[in-house]
């Protein structure tokens, strides 16, 4: 009698169980379902700080450097926005913005608006007689 009750309960739960499992399997097999930022590191090498520090605190480092540069004339290279750009600009577009751009892909993903480029040049480059050449 007790065995029958367990069998009935099992029978009841058995039907939805495979359906759920199939769903989970489909999710695992379909990586495109969850959007992820495309972080293209075109120039592999040592960043100025470890990766986890950069991911969490790059904005603090940049802000600190910007104040030192503008107000005190300290123009050291690590943590300078122009140095970030010169290393991380896409070789295709020459920029850190635009679709897939190093800065923009993450910021789009995190929905954090980037207003650096209202004033700063997102392309590395040397100024030439004809203007900025990427």
């Amino acid at each position, binding site marked *: 009698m007790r065995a029958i009750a367990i069998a009935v309960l099992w029978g009841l739960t058995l039907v939805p169980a495979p359906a759920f499992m199939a769903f989970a399997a489909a999710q695992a097999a379909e990586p495109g379902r969850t959007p992820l930022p495309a972080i293209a590191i075109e120039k592999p090498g040592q960043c100025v700080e470890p990766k986890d520090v950069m991911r969490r605190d790059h904005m603090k480092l940049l802000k600190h450097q910007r104040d030192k540069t503008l107000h005190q004339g*300290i123009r050291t290279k690590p943590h300078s926005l122009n140095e970030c750009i010169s290393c991380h600009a896409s070789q295709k577009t020459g920029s850190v913005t635009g679709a897939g751009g190093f800065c923009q892909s993450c910021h789009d993903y995190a929905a954090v608006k980037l207003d650096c480029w209202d004033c700063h040049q997102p392309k590395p*480059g040397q100024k030439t007689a004809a*203007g900025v050449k990427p």
Partner: protein
Amino acid sequence: MSGDMNRRGFIAAGAALAGLTLAPGIRLIEIASAKPDNEPVTSKVRWGLLIDTTRCQSGCTECVAACGKENGLGEVKKPRTDAQWIRKIDLKELKTGRAVSLPMMCQHCANPPCVDVCPTGASFKRADGIVLVDRHICIGCRYCMMACPYKARSFVHEPHSDQNPEVPRGQGCVEGCTLCVHRVDRGGAPACVEACAAAGHNAMLFGDLNDPESAIAKRIREVKTTQVRADLKLDLGVRYEGI
């Protein structure tokens, strides 16, 4: 120039060269101006500019063009609202007919009214006397434009996209002559000064007013120079000769 020559050496060599080509005692680039990248500017230095109106040519706009190129001005081509960091002015004394031509830009006041009125702290004076706008803080209220006796500042009305990487600038902020601070910090001279010398006029002299041995300090000790609207007692960094 050999490839392994360090920057300081290069600057010193450049200064020596300039010393040969200009009038005695007048050097384009001061050797003492090269500061290590990691050191803050100090008030030991006070950057200044001396403009010799007897050499400045009417009709010549080399300095204005050089400023535009260096700082990425004039991208929008709307003359009524385009930023002007430096402009040429022709003056004539009506009675005698004596005419002079001169470039006018931010005078880098020691007591700058633009800094006094700025409600945000965006307008500020660096320790070495260069007056700048921190665009990260500026809200574009334009109080400083009203306060400046020299009309030295401009509001940026349009979005920009082809900035010089070293001169970030964009819509919604006020800006003015920076004395090419990005060049000065590397031991260079402002673009206008170089352009004026390259055009053979040598009407602009840049240097450290606090260093008694600098060409500019020697010159202002020797000849009579004028601060425009000296009655305002702003202690200007830019002086004029021959007006």
